[in-house]
């Protein structure tokens, strides 16, 4: 029994990882919205002589998007906008935007304005039917307030003060603004809930597995990696190189942050990339120096587990790319981390293969 304990534990871990990954995949797939309305449009908005116009001269300064919902589950609305010319903040344009969502009877279902236009909203009472999303633009403060009061907003004296934040309100000029309106049906488990469950599940299982391994290695010494002095020496070097890689990466990351350089990835990806680079350098160097696998390691079992994890991560990563969650608005999101981990495992396996083919075994006499 003791002899087979490492294999049993490795198999159990592989099984847990597979189940975990499978669950995340299923949750992701189930949570992919089936009922969705997505609109992306560009609006050329001008402010001149105290008037705001959209595109060509129109009577009302607004964009109207009609759409039909065929199902009536709960919906999640994601609104976003950006200035195409430069990345001015929302308080910069000379006008204010108000989005009003009306049903076919003209009843207001939801609305938002100003900073809330870059936001997510939960719309739990949308029924199947026809709707119109009005994007209205204001340059007159009174007109804007009247509209809000009409919508049932309580415009108190305190709220009036908040208008001061829009420093350029009323400023003349033209703005080309890209709007995105994404209404997605929540089919069972939402996407975010799926991801959160996956992370929570993975975290708990990971901690339990680590605790189990620590307890077992204390009792069963054969489970503990045993390295000879040459391996210890090269592992020390590998750790050093990995550490310096992360150090240099963090320094570059800090410079990028200070210089406010926009990178096509979010903070979670940036952090994870540094971590993976460090692990990759450590793993590649120690594999190349025959110091990765311990004397009591079952190399084949380890490589099979590596391949399985790599394959699983790649599959999750590809699934995330296909459903469009890994790359959003020109930025890599944390959903692409699985793909990065998968690629890292593939690179490590390539290093193992190269080591074998370039004389890893040939020098035995």
């Amino acid at each position, binding site marked *: 029994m003791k002899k087979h304990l490492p294999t049993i534990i490795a198999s159990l871990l592989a099984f847990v990882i597979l189940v975990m990954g499978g669950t995340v995949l299923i949750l992701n797939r189930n949570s992919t919205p089936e009922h969705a309305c997505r609109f992306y449009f560009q609006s050329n908005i001008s402010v001149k002589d105290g008037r705001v116009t959209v595109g060509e001269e129109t009577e009302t300064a607004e964009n109207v998007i009609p759409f039909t919902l065929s199902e009536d589950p709960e919906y999640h609305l994601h609104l976003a906008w950006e200035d195409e010319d430069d990345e001015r903040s929302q308080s910069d344009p000379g006008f204010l935007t108000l989005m009003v969502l009306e049903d076919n009877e003209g009843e207001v279902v939801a609305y938002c304005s100003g900073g809330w236009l870059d936001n997510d909203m939960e719309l739990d009472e949308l029924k199947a039917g026809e709707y119109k999303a009005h994007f209205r633009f204001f340059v007159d403060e009174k007109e804007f307030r009247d509209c809000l009061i009409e919508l049932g907003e309580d415009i108190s004296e305190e709220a009036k003060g908040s208008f001061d934040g829009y420093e350029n309100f009323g400023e003349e000029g033209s703005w080309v603004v890209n709007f995105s309106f994404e209404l997605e049906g929540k089919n069972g488990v939402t996407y975010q809930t799926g991801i959160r469950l996956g992370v929570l599940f993975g975290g708990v299982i990971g901690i339990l597995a680590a605790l189990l391994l620590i307890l077992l290695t204390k009792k069963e010494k054969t489970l503990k990696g045993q390295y000879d002095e*040459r391996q210890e020496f090269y592992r020390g070097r590998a750790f050093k190189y990995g550490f310096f890689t992360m150090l240099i990466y963090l320094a570059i990351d800090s410079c990028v942050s200070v210089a406010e350089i926009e990178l096509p990835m979010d903070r979670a990806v940036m952090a994870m990339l540094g971590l993976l680079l460090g692990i990759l350098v450590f793993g590649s160097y120690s594999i190349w120096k025959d110091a990765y696998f311990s004397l009591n390691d079952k190399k084949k079992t380890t490589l099979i587990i590596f391949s399985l994890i790599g394959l699983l991560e790649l599959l999750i990563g590809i699934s995330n790319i296909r459903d469009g969650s890994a790359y959003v608005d020109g930025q890599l999101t944390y959903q692409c981390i699985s793909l990065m981990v998968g690629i890292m495992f593939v690179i490590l396996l390539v290093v193992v293969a190269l080591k074998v083919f370039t004389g890893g075994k040939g*020098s035995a006499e």
Partner: protein
Amino acid sequence: MKNLRLKSARAAMDLSQQELADRVGVSRQTINAIEKGDYNPSIRLCLEICKTLGKTLDELFWEE
């Protein structure tokens, strides 16, 4: 510098690198690295190898 004396002492006992490695408790690659002169072993490992091969430190590791 290659350690040909270690290699011949091992061959004289009809031991493969793996067998010697198993007896002294290191990996085959470590024995290979010592024979090729790519790695300088600690005095403890030198003693282990000497004991296993029935040689003295001078015979296997002293440079002439």
